């Protein structure tokens, strides 16, 4: 589903990622572990095609760097959901509207939208807070909304960039359990984190990243 071969990425001549090789198959749970500044977010942004490598080969589902065009990017992002450390929610709306937006953007019918949003809200345990403004929700709840939004389009892959970075240990544990459940239902999950204690409890493959290079 995702394939990186000898991928390098640099900004203004400074190498951020060097010779990255990585494969994610359907149903995998891949953890990318590394300290701050190791290049984890950059790697996930490459997988989300927010940025592109300066050399090497990158493929995400059917899109690779030689055939992807700007008009494909919105389509790719409907198949690859992403959650962020800072949640990146539409702060002027409630939880329901945040999740529904991802479906409106893909032209889904109104009735279907309602059904699917309520379903994912139940999945992340936030049915009772569907009409709360997201700014009034706790960090954990905001991350759940973010996960629900990423899931509502039924993506093949879920990318999670430090999803527990802003959360207390108990809430972090809940979010990790939620990601595991999502993975068990068939969605591939790629999670970047700097917390090794979390990675120890996770299934699947772990890649260690340090100063832009894979060390293990």
């Amino acid at each position, binding site marked *: 589903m995702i394939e990186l071969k000898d991928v390098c990425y640099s900004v203004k001549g400074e190498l951020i990622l060097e010779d990255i090789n990585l494969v994610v198959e359907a149903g995998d749970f891949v953890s990318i572990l590394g300290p701050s500044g190791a290049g984890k977010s950059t790697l996930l942004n490459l997988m989300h095609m927010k940025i592109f490598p300066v050399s090497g080969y990158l493929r995400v589902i059917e899109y690779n760097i030689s055939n992807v065009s700007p008009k494909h990017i919105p389509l790719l992002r409907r198949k690859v959901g992403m959650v962020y450390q800072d949640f990146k929610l539409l702060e002027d709306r409630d939880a329901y509207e945040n999740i529904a*937006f991802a479906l*409106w953007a893909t032209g889904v019918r109104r009735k279907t939208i309602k059904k699917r949003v309520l379903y994912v809200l139940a999945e992340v345990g936030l049915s009772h807070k569907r009409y709360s403004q997201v700014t009034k929700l706790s960090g954990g709840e905001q991350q759940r909304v973010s996960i629900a939004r990423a899931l509502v389009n039924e993506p093949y892959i879920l990318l999670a960039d430090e999803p527990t970075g802003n959360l207390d240990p108990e809430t972090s544990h809940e979010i990790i359990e939620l990601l595991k459940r999502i993975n068990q239902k068939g969605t591939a999950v790629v999670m970047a984190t700097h917390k090794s204690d979390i990675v120890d409890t996770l299934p699947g493959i772990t890649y260690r990243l340090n100063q832009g290079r894979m060390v293990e």
Partner: protein
Amino acid sequence: MSLNLVYTVREAFKGLKRHRFSSLMTMLSITISLIILEGFLVLTFNLKRGVDLFKQRLGVEIFIDSSLSAEETEKLRNRIVELKEVEKAVFVSQQQALEEFKAEFEEDIVKIIGENPLPASIRLELAKSYRTTREVEKLETKLLSFPGVEDVIYHGEIFKIVNRYSRIGMMILMALFLVVLFASILLITNTLRLTILSQQRLISVMQLVGATKGFIQRPYLIQGLFHGLAAGCISSALILFLVEVINTFYGDVLILREWLLLIPIVVGLFMGVLGSYIGVRKFLSQ
């Protein structure tokens, strides 16, 4: 498609409600710009109208040979009326001229000199494009060649002064109008750009969840259209009210044509959509 349209319109109005304070401020800024623009237009239009009216009144008078019969006089008048330079030609008989003299000077000239010395004349109102010194001089030569025309008089100096100063005045007004128009366009587009700037983060989040540029842009364009339309209507209504107040106190000095009231609405609509388009496009391309 229709579903997207429903979403777009709904989202646009929800956006106005969510960001009601900035919407109100945007509308207020656009309204002020449009009022200045419209006020300037009304002033220019009325000044030009005043000058035209003045020039129209500065007509040409043709004195007729007193030996012409009534039939010959009518023929002459008909010939003059057919000239392209002439908009209106009114025959003033000797008797009418005498009465006008009496009314103006409160004297009976017949009693003083024993006869009516005033000749019959034809008073001309010139067609709009012929109210210039050069055209009047050409017309004078032409009229003097007509049999039965004794003399042609017009206020040559005043014509020259009015023409010279009205041309300079109109050029200054046009230059000022362009400056005001340019300033209004800048102010309106910049106001809308700043309104959208405050939502830059929202726009980037929308892109991250897979919304296309068009999908993100459309509600903003409708909001821009609404801002422009509302500001245009408000400024037209305020100008209408202001003109009514001025006319009530100073006696119908200003005229307001319908098309003058339509201009801020059309400019508002156009600038509203354009400003929003420029604003969103800037952030979408980042």
